[in-house]
């Protein structure tokens, strides 16, 4: 079964609003990553947070990690129409190169 599960499955907001999506996972991890996928395209890496980090920022992105709850959140501030995409979290089984991707959140930003 997939390790990562995102919620909500779909999110529709107005331009300028903040978008928050959550990810849960099941086993111990070394790090957790977030990726973005535009429709019909490959995934693009957004940000990586290590298991000993609680929060990380990159531009308009803010990621938090709670290893006690096995969960992470991605916040996109001041969203733009160009942020419309699917967002996935990914983790790696400890000691392996096996990535497990979540089911994704489809974000639609309305202009």
């Amino acid at each position, binding site marked *: 079964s997939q390790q990562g599960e995102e919620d909500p499955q779909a999110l529709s907001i107005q331009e300028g609003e903040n978008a928050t999506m959550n990810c849960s996972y099941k086993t111990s991890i*070394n*790090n957790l990553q977030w*990726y973005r996928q535009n429709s019909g*395209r*490959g995934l693009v890496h957004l940000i990586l947070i*290590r298991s000993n980090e609680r929060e990380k920022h990159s531009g308009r992105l803010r990621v938090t990690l709670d290893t006690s709850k096995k969960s992470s959140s991605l916040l996109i501030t001041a969203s733009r129409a160009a942020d419309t995409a699917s967002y*996935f979290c*990914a983790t790696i089984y400890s000691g392996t190169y*096996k990535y497990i*991707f979540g089911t994704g959140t489809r974000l639609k930003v309305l202009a």
Partner: protein
Amino acid sequence: SQTIHQWPATLVQPVGSPLSLECTVEGTSNPNLYWYRQAAGRGLQLLFYSVGIGQISSEVPQNLSASRPQDRQFILSSKKLLLSDSGFYLCAWSRQRTSGGTSTDTQYFGPGTRLTVL
């Protein structure tokens, strides 16, 4: 800089026909290589990964196979396609980890191949 290529971009094949999708990486050596399949509107399913030439790990037992004949070449094949093989196939690479490090775990994806089996 590193680039990853996949071809073809789209493919329509009849049931029972063979399949060969190719992925190549430029600008790096000894990458870890991955094949994923994505059903419409769904997440990614890891099919195969390889940490070196001739080393293939299969995650999903099915009628697909993978080969890595060269360091930066990864091929996904099937002898006879099924309707259920339709989907979006993505190739990706990541760097080998350095001793004690995890910061190299970022995956870089190709543009994908849209496969429709009729």
